[in-house]
């Protein structure tokens, strides 16, 4: 029997190692080979190499570890990217809120044109000049009316100054407060708009004389909040006979004579834009609004260290250019929020106009009868005429107010700082981190069990 070379052994070990070996039985080798034959006949087919071990004892810990690592990677990388993609997907809808109502019924009404345009995907429109007259006679009529009205009122007599004071009057900074629902506050410092003056007279519209040449003035509001306009001088924004051009259809001079059939709606939009450069977008927004003939009722710009920049703009935009301005503003940055409403007041508008026309016809009939009436009849007719004219005047005031509201739409813009890619990614990773940690905690026990199983196997 072969012996291996002995290491350094003690005498006892060497003696034990060199003890005479017992000879095995002569047939022991044959018996062992026979046992192998029996095992081979009874056992399964031989397996090939290391595959046998792997099939016998699979190591699932690799799968668990890979699954846990892949889950972590997906959670940390894919979730922020998917969130970014989802936010940029078109077809976002916006919520409607109750419309601002000056005198009509409160509550939201169904939107028509504005909602349809907002739900469709709107490509980012490059900054450009506001569109020309493309809305037909309504826009052209209003613009031309504003120009004519401005020229007309400048030629009128200067109204008498309010009693007890010079002609400077008091600067009115709010318009249609009851309809807008908020206080605009004072104009921002450095505003380029002419101050509006309060009119103590009923028959004149003094603010027109200091109206900015580029921006139509709003209706004058006195302390009582009522709209006071002259009976013969059309209110600002009221359509007059437009100049004879190829693209403009003549419109009635007074709203009660407006038989164009155009829809009269009070539209509002509230939008929030996110951009890395708040000041630049703010300037662009103001420029876009003023270019289409709108004006800024209130503005606020805050830029502080360690604080995100923000700006707010409350503007009124001519209804004809409203959609175009909104589209243009959407292209200035990332649109975070867009809400709006539109209230159709066409029926009320036409109803009041018809009533005013009916009262005017009745007045004319009474005037004709007055010449041929007796003294007693004249007295009665005078009383009736006074009452009729009072009623008609009230209707005209209401209609003029409604016309002013429908000619200009309300636009609230909030510009906030943001949109930095890495900041967004950092925020999204921070939001995804709890999910990744939870996934790791769930996968960790499986990993530990698999490791223990592998060692014991």
């Amino acid at each position, binding site marked *: *029997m*072969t*012996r*291996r070379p002995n*290491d350094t052994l*003690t*005498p*006892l*070990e060497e*003696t*034990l*190692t*060199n*003890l*005479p*070996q*017992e*000879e*095995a*039985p002569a047939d*022991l*080798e044959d*018996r*062992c*080979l026979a*046992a*192998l034959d*029996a*095992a*081979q006949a009874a*056992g399964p087919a*031989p*397996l*090939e*190499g*290391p595959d*046998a*071990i792997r099939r*016998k004892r699979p190591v699932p810990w690799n799968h668990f570890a890979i699954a846990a690592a892949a889950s972590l990677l997906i959670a940390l990388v894919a979730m922020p990217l998917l969130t970014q993609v989802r936010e940029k997907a078109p077809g976002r809808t916006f919520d409607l809120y109750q419309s601002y109502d000056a005198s009509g019924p409160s509550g939201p009404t169904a939107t028509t044109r504005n909602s349809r345009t907002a739900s469709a995907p709107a490509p980012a429109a490059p900054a450009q000049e506001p569109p020309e007259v493309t809305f037909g006679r309504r826009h052209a009529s209003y613009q031309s009316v504003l120009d004519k009205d401005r020229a007309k009122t400048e030629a009128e007599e200067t109204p008498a100054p309010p009693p007890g004071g010079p002609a400077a009057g008091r600067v009115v900074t709010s318009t249609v407060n009851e309809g807008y629902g908020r206080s605009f506050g004072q104009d921002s410092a450095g505003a380029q708009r002419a101050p509006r003056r309060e009119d103590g007279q009923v028959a004149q519209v003094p603010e027109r004389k200091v109206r900015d040449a580029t921006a139509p003035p709003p209706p004058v509001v006195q302390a009582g909040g009522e709209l006071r306009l002259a009976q013969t001088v059309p209110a600002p924004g009221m359509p007059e006979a437009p100049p004879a051009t190829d693209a403009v259809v003549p419109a009635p001079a007074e709203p009660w004579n407006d038989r164009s059939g155009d829809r009269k709606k009070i539209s509002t939009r509230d939008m929030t834009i996110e951009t890395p450069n708040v000041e630049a977008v703010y300037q662009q927004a103001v420029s876009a609004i003023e270019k289409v003939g709108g004006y800024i009722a209130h503005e606020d710009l805050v830029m502080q260290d360690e604080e995100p920049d923000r700006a707010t703009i409350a503007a009124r935009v001519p209804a004809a250019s409203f959609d175009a301005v909104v589209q243009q503003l959407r292209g200035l940055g990332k649109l975070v929020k867009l809400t709006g409403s539109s209230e159709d007041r066409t029926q009320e508008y036409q109803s009041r106009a018809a009533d005013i026309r009916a009262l005017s016809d009745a007045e004319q009939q009474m005037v004709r009868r007055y010449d041929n009436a007796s003294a007693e009849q004249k007295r009665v007719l005078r009383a009736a005429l006074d009452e009729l004219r009072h009623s008609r005047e009230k209707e005209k005031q209401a209609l003029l107010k409604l016309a002013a509201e429908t000619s200009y739409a309300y636009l609230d813009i909030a510009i906030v700082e943001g949109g930095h890619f890495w900041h967004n990614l950092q925020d999204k990773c921070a939001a995804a981190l709890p999910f990744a940690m939870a996934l790791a905690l769930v996968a960790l026990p499986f990993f530990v069990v698999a490791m223990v199983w592998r060692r014991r196997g």
Partner: protein
Amino acid sequence: MTIHLLARSKLGPDRIRSRDRDAWNGLVAAEHQRLFNLHLRLCGDRETAADLTQETFKAAYETAHNFAGRCKPETWLYGVALNISRNWFRRQGRVSTPEPVDDTLPDPEPTPEQLALLHEQSHRVHEAVAALPQTYREVVALRYFADVPAVEIAAAERVPAETVRWRLHRGLKLLWAALAPELGKEQTHDTAAQ
């Protein structure tokens, strides 16, 4: 011997795992004698040792797919032999000798005369080894009767090599503690006879 050496050179883990009959025949030819002596030292009976040797090769062949190749095929075979021996002890209901608590046994320092007596009366050694506790009996039998190095014993039993060396040292002390009195009586008897 030449055949055995030739057979050993062809033994590879893949061939063992794949149950190559040529490889296994060579393994039987090379190791059956050593395995017989190992089982003989562990159980003390020739016929039982032969049966256990046969059962060891059979069990090893049946579980050849479990051989991972981390050690020599012979070492792995000795590990299977130890398991077979333990199973036999359990079937026999034989309780392993309890490990002595006393750890103050002296190191073995046999005289040349005692070593000569051990060589002549090897059956005493075998009986003393069979009486050792199971833990020490196995490592002593593997190391001195199967001539398996301590490193391979550690790989077969999946224990550190230092643990095997400690068991061997402890086992030798226990063995000499059992043999020394007998050898001392023999020496006295021989001296008196002369």
